[in-house]
C-alpha cells in the first residue's frame, strides 16, 4: 500500500480517533461502526461489519473510565475494517491476521493517547500564568490545539498501521497453514471468551444477573430449535 492510498483511510482514522475522547464522543468510534465504515470505504461493508462485530465483542472488555489507560478502538477499527475488506473472503488467514493487526494498532493507539495527554499537560504548564489571569485566547488556543493534535494523532496511527500491516497481513495470509474452519473457530472462541468475561466483570454486582443471562441463552436456544 502506498502513502497516497493510505492517506484517505488515515483521514477516516483521524476523524473516528477524534470521536473516542475529544469530539463528539457519539461512539462512531466503536468498532461495530468504525470498522463497518472503513469496510464501506473500501467497497465491502459486510466484511467491515464482520470484523467490527468481533472487535466490538473484544472492546466490551475495555470501557473508557476516566483517566484509565485503554486501547483506542476508533483508529484501530478503521485499520481492521480496511485490511479485512481488502482481502479475499475465502482466504482462511484473513480474519485472524487482520484481527491481530487491529488489536496491535488499538494497543499502540492507546499509548499514543497517553502521549497526547502528557503533551497537552506540558502546553498547559507553559500557559498556566495566562490561564490564571483569565486569558480567553490562551484557553481557546490550548483547547483547539489539543483537538488538532488528537486529529493528527489518529491520522498518524492509522497511516503508519496501514503501511506496516497491509503488506504484513497479505504475506501472512499467503502462507497461512491452518484450515479455514479452525481459523474462524479460534477467532469466535476468543471473541466469546472476552465478551463473556467482560459482561461478568461489568455486571457481576447486579442482583440475579446470571439468571437474566441464562434467560437470554434460553431465548437463543428456543430460536435455534424453531429455525431447525
Amino acid at each position, binding site marked *: 500500500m502506498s502513502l497516497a492510498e493510505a492517506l484517505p483511510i488515515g483521514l477516516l482514522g483521524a476523524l473516528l480517533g477524534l470521536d473516542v475522547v475529544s469530539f463528539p464522543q457519539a*461512539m462512531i468510534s466503536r468498532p461495530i461502526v468504525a470498522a463497518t465504515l472503513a469496510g464501506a470505504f473500501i467497497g465491502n461493508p459486510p466484511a467491515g461489519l464482520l470484523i467490527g*462485530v468481533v472487535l466490538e465483542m473484544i472492546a466490551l472488555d475495555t470501557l473508557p*473510565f476516566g483517566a484509565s489507560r485503554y486501547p483506542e478502538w476508533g483508529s484501530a477499527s478503521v485499520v481492521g475494517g480496511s485490511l479485512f475488506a481488502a482481502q479475499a473472503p475465502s482466504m482462511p488467514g484473513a480474519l485472524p491476521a487482520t484481527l491481530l493487526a487491529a488489536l496491535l494498532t488499538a494497543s499502540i493507539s492507546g499509548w499514543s493517547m497517553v502521549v497526547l495527554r502528557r503533551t497537552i499537560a506540558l502546553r498547559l504548564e507553559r500557559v498556566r500564568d495566562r490561564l490564571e489571569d483569565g486569558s480567553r485566547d490562551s*484557553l481557546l488556543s490550548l483547547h483547539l490545539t489539543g483537538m488538532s493534535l488528537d486529529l493528527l494523532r489518529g491520522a498518524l496511527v492509522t497511516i503508519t498501521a496501514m503501511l506496516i500491516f497491509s503488506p504484513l497481513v497479505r504475506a501472512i495470509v499467503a502462507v497461512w497453514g491452518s484450515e479455514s474452519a479452525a481459523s474462524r473457530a479460534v477467532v469466535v472462541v476468543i471473541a466469546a471468551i472476552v465478551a463473556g468475561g467482560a459482561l461478568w466483570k461489568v455486571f457481576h454486582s447486579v442482583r440475579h444477573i446470571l439468571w437474566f443471562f441464562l434467560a437470554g441463552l434460553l431465548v437463543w436456544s428456543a430460536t435455534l430449535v424453531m429455525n431447525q
Partner: protein
Amino acid sequence: MYFRLFALQGSWNYETLLGTGIGFVMEPALRLLPGGIKGEAYRSALARESRYFNAHPYLAGVAVGALTRAELDGVDPVRIERFRTALAGPLGSVGDRLVWASWLPFCSLVAIGVYGAGGSALSVVGTFLLLYNAGHFLLRAWGLRIGLSRGLNVASALGNPVLRQGPDYIGRAAALMGGVALPLGLQRIAGPGRALAGGIIGAALIGILLLARLRERAEGWRIALGVLAVFVLYSVLT
C-alpha cells in the same frame, strides 16, 4: 454551550483533567458578566472555571449549568470553589456506572443481536448509533438544563431514579440481551457447518469461567492478543 459540551474533552490532560474543557464550554455564557470579555469579572470567572475538575463527560453539563448560573448570579467565589470540589466525585461515579458500565454495553449487545439476526451493515450501525445517541444527547441536554435551572442546588438532581436505579435495570437488560445476542452474533461469524460447534461452545464456556474468576486481575483483550499472536505464528510456521 450545548454544542460546546460535545468538545468538552478536547484539552483533557493529566493535570487539570476536564478543567480547561469546563472553562471552554462556559466561556460564551461568561461574556454576559459585567464588562464583557474585557471585564475583571469575566477574567476571574474564566480562570476559576478552567482549574482542575473531573466528571463523566456526559454529566459534566450538570456542573457547567450550575456553575454558569452561580457565576452569572454573582455567588461568592469561595462557595463556587467548594461546590466544584463537592460535585466532581458524584458526577464521575454516577456517569461511569450509568453510561460506560451500562448504556454502552447494552447498546453494543443490541447491535450485535441485530447482526446475529441477519441485519445488514446499515441496520446494525443505524440501530447502534440511534439507540446510543438518543440516550447520549438527552443526558447532555438534561444535565445542562437541570444545572442552569437549579444552580448550586443541583445536587438533589443526582437522586433522579434514572441515575440511581438505571444502571441496575440496564444491567439486567444487557445480561438478557447478552444471552441472546452473543451466541447469535458468534453463530453468524462462525458461518454454516456445525462440526466445530460443540468444541467452540465448550472452549468458550471454559474460557469465560476462567476469565470470570480472574476478574480485575486480567484484561481479556490482552489475553486475546497473546493467544491470537501465538495462533497466527503457529499457522504461519506450519
